[in-house]
């Protein structure tokens, strides 16, 4: 179609705009429906995103790290036999590269902890405190006492819940039993120097921390560790980090990204992306019936007028164009309103939404009790693009019908 034979765009737009408001009640209702739909798309997506993002971030903090290096059999059988040597020079060099935000090495072994009152099975972590801080250990999570000071520290840091279970206290002694590589029971007494709180209460019962060198000495593991954990800038994009660390692998070790170490977390990210798209399309479908209906009614009311315009020389394509323009204006206005509504309702919640009433239920999913909605530009754009593109597509049918009337018959219609 050549624009020369059409009315100028400005005139067409003015015509479409005026047509839109001829039945202002209908237009307002439809506008409201689109706005509510778009709001729901963006708002719910932001809530879900916030939940999953946080779950993944917390999960990565617990793993810890975005990339881990182990003995090849360690993940399948996390026992002391499958330890690896401390990082060799080549690996150390890779760990000093700019992609690496922080790294640490740990010994991680199953152990039994006993107070004079009770005993529990736990995971004993021998850590390097500086490395733990670099990896995102939050000093604020320590509620009593201090964190470890050096790899030689012989103090023990345990979770608040475990402390209660064992009916012991800061400064008291407990016995930790584990197994050395020859399967001899190794045990020693530790003084509790710090108590931490974790976002997920169940973790407080699992992990106990002491100095890396202390554990190596206890278990006769000098120079050996269980894992090297590395963290980078963005957990969504670990390819560069993985390539860098993997490049330093001499073939005797296994280097894996977080989504392969904890497949639940990796899958959640994919499930979430799929869910966002399904949700947006379902809402759009619910909207589309109303949209088509509104346009159909508009066409139906104006049959005579369409006939008249055609009789006066307006091309069918121009009539189609006119109706599409009207629909586009309706969609754009609805989108504008919906986006504003969504942003306005998400902003006040960014400080966190307290859902502690169902905290233990959320913990089953690995989610803590404060929800931070995450409004992502990508999701916002997706919702807008889906509504505009599919909206114009659904309007094609009524607009096309409008252009197919025969002038004489249309004028004769009452």
């Amino acid at each position: 179609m050549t624009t020369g034979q059409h009315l100028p765009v400005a005139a067409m737009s003015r015509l479409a705009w005026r047509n839109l408001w001829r039945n202002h009640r209908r237009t307002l209702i439809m506008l409201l429906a689109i706005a509510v739909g778009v709001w729901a798309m963006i708002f719910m997506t932001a809530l879900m995103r916030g939940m999953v993002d946080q779950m993944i971030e917390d999960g990565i903090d617990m793993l810890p790290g975005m990339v881990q290096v182990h003995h090849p059999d360690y993940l399948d059988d996390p026992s002391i036999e499958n330890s690896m040597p401390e990082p060799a020079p080549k690996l150390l060099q890779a760990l000093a590269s700019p992609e690496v935000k922080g790294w640490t090495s740990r010994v991680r072994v199953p152990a039994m902890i006993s107070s004079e009152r009770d005993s529990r099975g736990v995971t004993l972590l021998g850590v390097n405190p500086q490395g733990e801080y670099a990896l995102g250990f939050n000093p604020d999570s320590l509620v009593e006492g201090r964190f470890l000071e050096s790899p030689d520290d012989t103090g023990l840091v345990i979770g608040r819940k475990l402390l209660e279970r064992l009916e012991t206290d800061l400064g008291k002694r407990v016995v930790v039993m584990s197994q050395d590589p020859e399967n001899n029971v190794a045990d020693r007494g530790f003084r509790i120097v710090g108590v931490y709180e974790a976002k997920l209460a169940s973790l407080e019962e699992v992990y106990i921390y002491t100095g890396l060198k202390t554990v190596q000495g206890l278990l006769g593991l000098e120079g050996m560790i269980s894992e090297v954990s590395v963290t980078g800038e963005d957990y969504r994009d670990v390819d560069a980090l993985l390539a860098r660390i993997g490049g330093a692998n001499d073939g005797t070790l296994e280097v894996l990204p977080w989504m392969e170490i904890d497949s639940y977390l990796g899958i959640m990210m994919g499930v979430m992306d799929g869910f966002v798209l399904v949700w947006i399309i379902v809402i759009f479908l619910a909207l589309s019936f109303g949209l088509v209906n509104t346009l159909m009614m508009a066409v139906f009311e104006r049959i005579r007028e369409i006939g008249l315009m055609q009789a006066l020389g307006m091309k069918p394509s121009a009539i189609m164009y006119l109706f599409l323009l009207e629909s586009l204006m309706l969609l754009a206005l609805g989108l504008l309103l919906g986006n504003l509504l969504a942003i306005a309702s998400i902003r006040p919640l960014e400080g966190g939404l307290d859902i502690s009433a169902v905290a233990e239920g959320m913990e089953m999913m690995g989610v803590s009790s404060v929800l931070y909605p995450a409004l992502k530009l990508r999701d916002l754009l997706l919702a807008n693009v889906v509504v505009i593109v599919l909206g114009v597509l659904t309007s094609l049918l009524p607009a096309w019908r409008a252009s197919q009337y025969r002038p004489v018959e249309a004028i004769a219609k009452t």
Partner: protein
Amino acid sequence: MTLSLRLAWRNLWRHKRRTWLTASAMIFSNVLLVFLISLQYGSYEMMINNTLQTFSGHIQVQKAGYQKNPKFRNSIAGVQPLADKLRAAMPEARIAARAAGFALASSEQRSIGIQVIGVEPAFEPGASTLPGLVLEGRFLQGENAAEIVIGSLMARNLKVTTGDELTLLGSGLDGSFAAGVVTVVGIFDSGTSEMDRSFAEVPLDYFQEVFAMGDHGHSIALALDSIDFVDIELAKAEALVSGQNGVVVIDWIELHPGLKQAIQADMSSAWLMYGVLIILVAFSVLNTQLMSVLERTHEFGVITALGIKPRKLAALVMLETALMALIGLSIGVFLGWLVALYFNTVGFAYPGMAEVAERFNLPGKMYPTVSLISLLLGPAVVFLFCLIASVYPAVRLFRLRPVDAMRAV
């Protein structure tokens, strides 16, 4: 009445396409709601049953405070006689006494900290499904035999199979050093990795001996046929244990606070989504009915001039909406029923669901429940909201002035 019904029906078909489009919006939402609600009910039911039947039972008798803080010393004296008493008085429940402790289990090659449960070999298979999940070897037999049944991951981590020996080290009720040598007689696979990794069962009498517990135990589990009987059986059990000092009876909600909350959290987020769908349908109906009233201004003017009360006209508009919503409801429920029925037989799965489901003790496939409530709950709410949406167009008729209305084209 029949006259207005016929009138409403005919009015509905004056704009065939519009009526069908509006009804389609209802059908779309109804099918979706029926399917999703059936799926939700199905998964909740499975989640509750799987969680309770695997081990905990529907009701437990414990020492007060044990659930919040499961300390070893927080035990019930004479746990087996008490269980016998309950068994005699409550034939509907399957009842088993237990004791629970932690121990360091060592095989020839490995040692790990595990949770050891002392169970009654004769009664445990009724109270939990775990004995039935023993895939290798057999469940415990002797009342006081030095036998142990362990999870499949634990067996792998300890590098043992049936027939091998394990040493258990822990502390007894009196704080003494507790040690025992047990033979692995069976290995179970519950499908829940947490359980398969750290759970083991030994005969209760043997447990009491090793951990110096005398006749003490920690809990009595009562498994019922359905969650519906919990309240009745709970009351019975409470009456039976009332003589015992500090002993309480708690139900599954208290045993698994996370379960109830997970269901609540899922319910509320789901209804937030359903609410949006329903409101969008209601807008559609509002639009259609408002248009249909405005179109007929002239006609309504004539009718009121002839003496028909606005009240009757409003009722007519509501009736039209109700008829349209009924079409949407019946077709929607029918199609939704077909969809739910289909997935009820073949099961429903989407990529990644199996991993998520395992966290809630669910299998990789979900089976929607097809019941009257799961079929009708969503569509009934849609129906109600459609009627509410048509109130505004109907109420407008009260303001109709016959003379002005008749002038309208």
